[in-house]
Each structure stands twice: as structure tokens, then as C-alpha cells.
């Protein structure tokens, strides 16, 4: 393992040209993410956190500055299938079973049939959906569908997992449970995770590094390295350390928001 950052952004900017003039979605972003980190991006709507994630995934092109993923351009990283991406909605194909949905990236990437079957089994076990391989998406609850979509992103074993508010549409109880499972999964697989969220407790609970962003123009207003231990039961959310970090995130959000 080298000390090279897995994701490195220097002076990154992205401006959308719209009919109402240019919109600065990202401006002068500098950030390094090391291997095995769990990084949350938090901020109000329009702060560019999703855009930043999409730039890492090569779903948007930056208009200024540099960004490298594993030392290469996002496009090269995407073509090398360096990351798995989890969207806000599960987006499972309704005509494929859960197993078939997880097999989708494997089919596209040309894995052998036997390898496909084994990997589907493995990731289904990882997200505790082993009994649902033959079920269709509509037969599963929203939380289970989102777990299946995470399994789909994990199936080809990319080192980086990019997640765009994956639990945003789920209720609090399901969300807590999935957060616990996600942490557990991260500890076991040692993946680098980029995680966009609206929720302060979620960001603090999950992350080793919290990136607070602010809108107009989208920029980083604070980066907090979490002192919390890697092993985190849900109860950690009631400890003074946790509350202190949450406080700092809240202040960062308030400062970035300006006197509106």
C-alpha cells in the first residue's frame, strides 16, 4: 500500500452554463482521500456534494482544476471499473430478479458464468439477502431494494464505493439498521467510501472524515477528521465525543450558509 491518495482533487471547479447565467456548482475544491477512508459529504441542497461525487465517477466533467482517482483520470478509472456507484434510488431493473440485477454489471464486464454465480451469492450474503435471489424487486421493501443495489455495486469488487444519499428515502429505523450494516461491511472489506448525505448524525456516525460543504458557489467549508474509534455501536451517538463532532459539523454548515 502506498501513501498516494486514492482520490485527489486540486483546485477543482465545475461551472454549469444555464440560461440564467453560469452556476458555480463547484469552486476551488481541494481534497485528498486515502485508501480505506470513509468520507461523508454533507451540506445543504445546491452545495455541489452530489456533483462532486459525479465528477469522481466521470458522470460530470470538471471545467477547471485537477482530479485523479487511483492516480489516473476519472474516465480512465471508470473504464477500469475502479468504483461502484450507489444512486439515491435503488434503480433495480423490474424485469430482472434480485440475483439478475446483481449479475448485470458482471455480465457487462464479461465475468464467466460460474464466477458470476459465486459473486452473486457472496454479495447477497454480505447484505443479508441470500433468500431473495429469485425474487423480483417489487417483492422487496424499499430498504431491501437499496441493500440489493449496494450488493450490485459491490459485486465486481471495486476498491472504491461512491454512494449518493443511498438511504435518503428510507425511514429512520431502517436507516439506522442499514448504517450499522454499512459500517460493518466497510470494516470487513476495507473499501474507500465516498458518501453523500443530508443527515448530520449519519455523517458523524459513519465517517472517518466529514467534508462540510456550502452552496453558491459550491465549496468546502470544513474538513473534520473523526476521532471516533472504528468500532462503533449505535449507542456511540449519545457520547460527548459524538455530540461534539456533530456540533462542529452544525457550525460548519451554519457558517457556510451565510446571513440569508
Amino acid at each position: 500500500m502506498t501513501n498516494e491518495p486514492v482520490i485527489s482533487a486540486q483546485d477543482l471547479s465545475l461551472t454549469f452554463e444555464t440560461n440564467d447565467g453560469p452556476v458555480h456548482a463547484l469552486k476551488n475544491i481541494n481534497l485528498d482521500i486515502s485508501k480505506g477512508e470513509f468520507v461523508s459529504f454533507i451540506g445543504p441542497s445546491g452545495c455541489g456534494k452530489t456533483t462532486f461525487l459525479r465528477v469522481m465517477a466521470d458522470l460530470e466533467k470538471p471545467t477547471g482544476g485537477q482530479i485523479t482517482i487511483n492516480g489516473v483520470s476519472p474516465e480512465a478509472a471508470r473504464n477500469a471499473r475502479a468504483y461502484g456507484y450507489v444512486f439515491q434510488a435503488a434503480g433495480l431493473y423490474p424485469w430482472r430478479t434480485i440475483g439478475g440485477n446483481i449479475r448485470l454489471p458482471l455480465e457487462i464486464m464479461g465475468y464467466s458464468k460460474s464466477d458470476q454465480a459465486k459473486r452473486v451469492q457472496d454479495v447477497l450474503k454480505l447484505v443479508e439477502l441470500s433468500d431473495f435471489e429469485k425474487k423480483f424487486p417489487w417483492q422487496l421493501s424499499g430498504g431491501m431494494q437499496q441493500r440489493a443495489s449496494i450488493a450490485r455495486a459491490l459485486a465486481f469488487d471495486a476498491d472504491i464505493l461512491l454512494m449518493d444519499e443511498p438511504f435518503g428515502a428510507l425511514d429512520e429505523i431502517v436507516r439506522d439498521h442499514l448504517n450499522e450494516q454499512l459500517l460493518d461491511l466497510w470494516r470487513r472489506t476495507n473499501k474507500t467510501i465516498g458518501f453523500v448525505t443530508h443527515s448530520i448524525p449519519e455523517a458523524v456516525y459513519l465517517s472517518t472524515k466529514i467534508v462540510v460543504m456550502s452552496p453558491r458557489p459550491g465549496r468546502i467549508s470544513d474538513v473534520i477528521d473523526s476521532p471516533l474509534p472504528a468500532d462503533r455501536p449505535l449507542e456511540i451517538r449519545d457520547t460527548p465525543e459524538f455530540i461534539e463532532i456533530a456540533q462542529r459539523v452544525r457550525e460548519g454548515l451554519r457558517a457556510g450558509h451565510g446571513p440569508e
Partner: protein
Amino acid sequence: MRCSVFPVIAVICGLMAMWYIAVVPMNIKMALTDAERSGMVVTPSGAKERRDRSAILLVAQNPFAIKATFSLERPRLPAPHQVAIELWNSTVNKKITSKRSLIFHGWITLSATLLGFAIGTGLGTLLAVGIVYSRAMDMSVMPWAIASQTIPILAIAPMIIVVLNSIGVQGLLPKAIISAYLSFFPVVVGMVKGLRSPDHMQLDLLKTYSANSSQGFWKLRLPSSMPYLFASLKIGIAASLVGAIVGELPTGAVRGLGARLLSGSYYGQTIQIWSALLGAAFLAAALVAIIGLAQRITLKRMGMA
């Protein structure tokens, strides 16, 4: 089951009742002429006198003739039971190879319909793929496809038959081409919509796998378009049948449902016209039902029904 059968029966009964009621004034003048000829007293007397009278008034003045309006040999509007008897006689009571068998004529039209439907569906799908994947085709083909459907088929059908005949193509194929001309359009429109139905997120997902465009077509766009395709096929198969029948009209064809309609109108055989019409309607209903069944089975297997 019972609650779906009852409304259907109710509507059929209503239509039958309206049909029977319409038969009386439609045929009264002819019935009165026959009655007068056989020596009955009719008010007013003389066909010339009655010509400009209101049919409803004549029915009121000559109620004895009502019964006769249901059993004329060449009625202006045949009664439902007359059409039913003709349908029965020309299907069950005739050998299939007979020129007077409706099944024989139906098969002639059906074969052109199916061939035209296959050509139209294939062509429509190909055009839709082209339109979705090529900006140039999107801009150039779609206006022509729309323009093609604004031309009355009755105007263009004879030209297709004549042009193809002059290069030696006749029989099934010219009719099938007219069928295809009508049926490709709903397939183009439906498939373009269907192939474009995947949302941004689903397309982005494939991009994160760096899938190529043929994978995007087979794994995402084509399966997403299935519900749209079947809706189009239902319209397309009915349009195909219309095309095949229309294709039989201008050439004075002697075989096919269109030929039955034509010869019926030459010889004033209204009962024959109506039975051919109903035969065509039953055929269309059966074809649409078959597509519906295929849709149910396919979408069920795809987990989408």
C-alpha cells in the same frame, strides 16, 4: 368473472336492441312496396308517393309491415339474425375450400395481414432503433413517417398495387405491403418512446460500468420498451387487417374479405356485406386478443405484470 361478463352482455344486448329498432324504418319502404305488390292495402298507396315520406311516419301508418322488414331478401339494413344465419351458413355449412366460404376468404385476408404485420413490425422496430441512436435519422425519418400516415390509404393502395403489378409482383405481397404501410407507424412511435423510456439514473448506472451501446440496447433499452411495444402491436395488427382488406378493394380481387365486401356491394347483397364486416371484426378481435395474451405471458415472465 361474473362481474366482468355482465357489463359485456348488457352492452351487446343494448346494441342488438338498437340495431333491431333501426331495421324497421330503414327497410319499411321496401317492405311496403313488396306488400303492395302482393295485393295488400298500403297507406299511402304507390311507391312514388311514399318516396319522400318520413320512414317513421310510414311505420306508424302501416304497423302490419313491421314484421316483414326483418326478413327481406335484400334489405337496406339486414336484421342481426339474418346476418347471423348468413355467417353460420358461410362458415360452418360450407367447405373451407369453397369460394362461398367466409373462412376461405378470411384466410386469404389473414395471410396478407400476418405477412404485412411482420414486415411492418420489423420495419417499425428498425426505424425506431435508428431514430433513437442517430440524430440525423431522428430529424429526417420521423416527419416522413408522420406524413405517410396523413395520406388516405384508399388513395395510395391502388398505386401500390398497380406499380408492383407492373414490375411483376402480385398476389399476397402487394396487399401485405399495404398492411405494412399502416402497421409500421404505431410500432415506430411506440418503440421510439419505449427505447427512450430508461431514465437518466439507469443510463448513468450503465455508464459507471462503462457498458458499450450495444449492451445498453440489449440489457436496458430493449427490455424497457416491451410494454410500449405490445401496446403498439395491438394497434398495428388491427391496422394491418384494415390494410389487407383495403388492398383487396381497388383491384377487383375475387378472393378475400375485401372481395366479399366488393361483390356484395355490386350485387346489392347487404347481408353478405354485413357478414363479411362482422367476420372481419371477429378476426380483428381475435388477433388483438392473441397479442394481448402474448403480452401477458411475456410481461409475466419478465416480472412486470
